């Protein structure tokens, strides 16, 4: 199962906070982004509250789709902002939206949480992911889709979650995943193709 393939690592804050955008960093909006980053780095409460208001729900949604666990998703979303406060001094404005940085943190924390959970014998990840009552069972018509998602690789799941569930742009997704925009488009295409193939195959519930 890709999610538990062992490629997760223990939380490494410096690593998760290091954002690099390989390409397509636009100059437009750089000053706004720099201004926002400066306010955040100065620990302005209002700036942080705005960031929280805008992205907490998105972080939660991302984590929920990846873990299928509402409480774990809440925990992860919360951890994202605590980690962000701790690491804001190391954040560098590169042209990527701040969201990408947050999603990168979320991605790493989620991977770490999934790794930890996969080691607990009582809660195998295969039984949990995307199968919670609040998700698949409540959404009969979407269950196949949720099931099919489980058969994607970790990166494919991430790109789908970021692009179509969390509504991130290609650029944001690229920054969050540490890939180029072109690589994200390719990965997205492969993920959608795999997803379509899984659905056509009729993944048993």
């Amino acid at each position, binding site marked *: 199962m890709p999610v538990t393939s062992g490629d997760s690592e223990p939380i490494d804050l410096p690593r998760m906070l290091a954002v690099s955008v390989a390409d397509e960093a636009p100059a437009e909006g750089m000053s706004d982004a720099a201004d926002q980053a400066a306010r955040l780095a*100065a*620990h*302005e*409460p*209002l700036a*942080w*509250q705005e960031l*929280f208001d805008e992205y*907490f*729900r998105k972080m*939660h*949604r991302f984590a*929920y*789709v990846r873990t299928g666990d*509402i*409480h774990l*998703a*809440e925990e992860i*979303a*919360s951890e994202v*902002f*605590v980690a*962000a*406060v*701790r690491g804001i001094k190391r954040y560098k404005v590169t042209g990527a939206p701040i969201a990408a940085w947050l999603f990168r943190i979320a991605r790493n924390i989620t991977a770490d949480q999934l790794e930890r959970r996969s080691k607990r014998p009582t809660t195998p990840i295969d039984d949990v992911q995307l199968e919670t009552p*609040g*998700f698949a069972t*409540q*959404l009969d018509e*979407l269950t196949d*889709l*949720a099931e099919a998602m489980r058969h994607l690789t970790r990166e494919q799941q991430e790109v*789908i979650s970021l*692009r*179509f*569930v*969390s*509504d991130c742009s*290609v650029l944001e997704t690229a920054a969050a995943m540490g890939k180029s925009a072109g690589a994200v*488009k*390719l990965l*997205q*295409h492969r993920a*959608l*193709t795999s*997803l*379509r193939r899984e*659905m056509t195959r009729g993944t048993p519930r």
Partner: protein
Amino acid sequence: MTMSYQDALQRCLDALRAGEPLDAVIAAYPQFAAELREEVALTQNLQRLSNAVPAPDAAATSRAAALMNQELLAAQAAERRPRASFWGGFFVRSLAGGALVAVVALIAAGALFSGVFDNGGGAVEAATIEGIVVEAGAGTLTLQTSDGLASVQLDGATITDEDGAPLDATGLDIGEGVVIKARRIAAAKYAATQVTRMAVARLEAWCAREVSSCREAQERFQNTPACTNNPERCKAIIARVEELRIHLENVDKLQDLMQRCREPGSAVCQDLVQFCRQNADLCSGIRDRLQNLQSAVDGNLRERFHSMTERCTGGDGNACADLARFCTEHANLCPATAPLRPAASPTTTRPVTSPTTRPIEQRLVPATVTSTPQRSP
């Protein structure tokens, strides 16, 4: 194929996001039309899936905001150390500009917040803190205060009870209320100069004012290791917990009465006034409101009295019985001249005697009535 297909897909997704008609975009890529339609439909389903993701619980959101703000305040405090005056001013300005910052989160982070301004290497600040002891270690107390937990060092402090009788540190056990004069040495850390153990009434009054802090303290020392390690001490703690539990029940009752008293025309206000007469300490925090309430209740009672009086003197025997009962309960509001039977009743064998010289208890004894049925008081 892949690159151009990817571009085509991206165009479709962008069009979808912008609310543009999809067919026109797909028509521009006839060679991929079928595949594009399927994948775009798939992404639409994914978005539906996204919309179906339950929102985080409101309490969880508040908790998360509070945690973030705590971290923020801790970071500010850490930064402020070398440049206390600058960061203090900076933070004040930030807060002034940030009036919309979630109040809940700041309240939750209250303890840290208060420490931000005095955690630097600058002058220490004198403080008076009140709270309940939730941990008592060697020379240190941990208090539950209205701002959260506070750690207090007792070295060299004078410790007394409220009457000024000296105590040693062992007299300050878990569950005791204390008032401490201290120097603040760091965020939520104090060095005590004088410690006064609260009398029970004062502790109860504190709990009445700081209900949630009091409950928090109770929960903390119910689980204290001191209880499991020392059964004798535990008994005392449990007794104290029990006292507090009963007290908190009274607090609940008070709050319930206050809540219901707000309802228009509620007779509960009278119960509230009565309750507060019996629990004056508990109601000390609402003394002003209580006086107003007392006036209002008295006004209502007077109105009732006049109404009953009118009906009684108009010949309504039941009203007279009600009035008699009323006068038993509210002797202070019942003038000595109150009629206690239908004055105009033709069946009355003797006129109502002027009761001015009779004590109320005597007046409540029904006078001889020959035929008018009357409820006994």
